[in-house]
């Protein structure tokens, strides 16, 4: 059973804290998707909250026929569209299919909604991450690339790299820690300027 489904079942059984974990896990992605519709970041946060509340209310009916994120994604875009309709603003003509929601590269579909500032920030971030990965030991860099860019499971990575799953887990953790450190430094530099 996937971690998401485990968390959903906990919510259905009365564990509200499990829903907090789902919010924390998907909030960035949901806000990102909604920003593609409503543009204003503050407004996007409000709509995202509404979407999560709707998801909580609908979660007793979630049976796991689709991935949780695909289900949540549909709720999010419907909430965003309803929000625009209520304010007599047209939803964007380009819509991202919910099946693409689980794809790692679906964000490209929403690029056209980015502002020049946000686009610059995203490019800068990507560059920082790229540099951070390049500075990692080869095994660690390979592990994080296979995981984040190719979407492989730990088991698949272990087979490709011919090492135990525990080693894969450890390498990915070290890579994340290093990338996180680089991001923090970039953030600190940005605040000082």
């Amino acid at each position, binding site marked *: 059973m996937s971690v998401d489904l*485990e968390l959903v079942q906990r919510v259905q059984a*009365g564990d509200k804290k499990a829903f907090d974990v789902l919010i924390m896990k998907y*909030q*960035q992605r949901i806000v*990102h998707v909604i920003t593609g519709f409503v543009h204003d970041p503050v407004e996007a946060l409000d709509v995202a909250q509404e979407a999560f*509340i709707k998801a909580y209310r609908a979660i007793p009916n979630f049976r796991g026929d689709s991935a949780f994120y695909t289900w949540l994604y549909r709720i999010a875009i419907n909430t965003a569209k309803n929000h625009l309709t209520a304010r007599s603003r047209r939803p964007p003509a380009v819509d991202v299919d919910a099946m693409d929601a689980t794809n790692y590269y679906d964000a490209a579909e929403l690029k056209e909604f980015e502002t020049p500032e*946000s686009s610059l920030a995203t490019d800068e971030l990507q560059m920082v991450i790229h540099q951070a990965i390049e500075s990692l030991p080869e095994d660690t860099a390979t592990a994080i690339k296979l995981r984040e860019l190719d979407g492989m*499971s*730990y088991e698949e990575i272990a087979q490709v790299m011919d090492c135990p799953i525990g080693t894969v887990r450890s390498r990915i*953790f070290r890579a994340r820690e290093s990338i996180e450190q680089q991001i923090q430094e970039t953030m600190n530099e940005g605040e000082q300027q």
Partner: protein
Amino acid sequence: MTANHNELLSALVDGELQGKELELALNLIHTNDDARSQWQRFQRTSDIMHGHSLSLDNIDLTTLLSQRLSQEPIYSSASDDKTAKIFTFTKPIWKQAASLAVAASIGALAVVGVMNKPENQLIPITTQVAAVETTAAPIITAQNSKRWTVSEQDVEHRLDTYLVDHNEYTGASGVFSYARVVSYDEGQ
């Protein structure tokens, strides 16, 4: 927070935890603020790498939503339990089985008794006639045939007359009136 804990949180981002490890990681997130922040940072890094995040801003919807979620109901699997209770034995199984066995035995005895009883085991007609003779009132009895007969000729004749009159003067004509006359006695 140990390195091992951080490694667990990193694996949780990838959905690679199960059982006790998942339990431990979730417990850390719920009880330890450092663990919670660390997990959110790992999650954000992953989101940025996938292009799911446009900025470095830390979004924490859980804080914003906490009040609204506190007003929402807590779900339980009670609705499922209701369905389950329909099929749940309220008594111990052995008691249910014993009751069922007794009921089945009584049922079987009744069936066997009916099957062994001789056909048409009605009171012999001679006995009935004798009974009629001892009483003044006319008695209608069942014979071996399925027709009903009246034991006294006088009474039978009067009944026939009433029946014919009734059918003639009732005003209701048609199949049913005729059928009544015919069905009573072929001779009428």
